């Protein structure tokens, strides 16, 4: 089966999440397995399915900084998607391509990230359940859901990280604790720029593209009008809605 690769594009948070859902429905209906790469503009915080938005995110600070927020359909933690700081991927494929073993499928897909980082000269390793580390520090996190016979795994690769901004947007307790937390995060999180110094985002995207497609039959494709229309509906009805975002 030939994969459809949707090249790097930029959307708002609600459209990005809705596109995953719309493309998932399309793959369930027989469209080819799809990998897409994207950025978030405005920058946004996404929270995991089981998290509470008000508990995890400083909404007033988000408002002040012009940062959107959205609840994902996948579990996992809160993530700051900085437009200048990361590239996100989504992989959507029939479940039988990756099998019923969830941890194993994380390992396989995160292996594409490990390979991508290798193309940049970085020695990375998969750290179960859902992280990729360089130098013992997290450079990528992913989350997975399985619906309608389709696996969706999406995740981020940190290009450049600014813990002060990131944790100004996330609720981590009092300032004293936050300072300690920022220091601890600096010790636990890294980025491609941290590791390599001057490197263009285009080069990182090129490595991701190669890492995700190597060994696969694939071709570039676009989001279809049907998917786009469906995504517009889903973005409005679910991801922009207060009911969805504040449901826990």
């Amino acid at each position: 089966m030939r994969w459809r690769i949707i090249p790097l594009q930029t959307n708002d948070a609600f459209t990005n999440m809705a596109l995953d859902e719309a493309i998932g429905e399309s793959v369930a209906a027989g469209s080819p397995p799809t990998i897409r790469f994207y950025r978030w503009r405005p920058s946004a915080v996404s929270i995991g399915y089981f998290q509470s938005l008000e508990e995890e995110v400083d909404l007033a600070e988000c408002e002040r900084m012009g940062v959107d927020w959205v609840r994902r359909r996948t579990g996992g933690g809160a993530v700051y998607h900085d437009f200048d700081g990361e590239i996100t991927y989504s992989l959507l494929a029939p479940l039988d391509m990756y099998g019923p073993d969830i941890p194993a499928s994380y390992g396989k897909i995160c292996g594409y990230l490990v390979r991508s980082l290798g193309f940049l000269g970085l020695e990375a390793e998969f750290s179960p359940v859902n992280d990729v580390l360089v130098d013992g520090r997290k450079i990528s996190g992913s989350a997975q859901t399985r619906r309608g016979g389709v696996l969706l795994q999406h995740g981020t690769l940190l290009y450049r990280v600014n813990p002060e901004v990131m944790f100004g947007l996330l609720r981590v307790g009092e300032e004293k604790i936050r300072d300690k937390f920022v220091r601890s995060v600096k010790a636990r999180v890294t980025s491609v720029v941290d590791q390599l110094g001057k490197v263009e985002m285009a080069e990182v995207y090129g490595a991701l593209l190669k890492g995700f497609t190597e060994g696969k039959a694939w071709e570039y494709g676009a989001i279809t009008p049907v998917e786009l229309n469906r995504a517009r509906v889903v973005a409005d009805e679910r991801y922009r809605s207060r009911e969805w975002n504040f449901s826990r």
Partner: protein
Amino acid sequence: MREASKKITGGKLVKMRRDEKTGRVTIHGDFFLHPEESVFALEDLLSGLPPSTGEGKTTTLVTELMQEEGIQAVGFVAGDLASLFSEVAH
């Protein structure tokens, strides 16, 4: 409202809250559960248990529900939810 939390495999957090007036239990955190909506069935089960329910009995009931509904938790087991329930219920 009583709350208890537990770190599970991979450093994830499972947090449980129980409203002492209504007995309503909710489960929060950065964990993974498949299908995601099955969290409501788990919450309903725990909300319906008397606070005096022993940890062993709760583990059995949660395990049975997970098996019946094909619920897969990544990084935690029924016993983790049972021990959290025991904390918030007492």
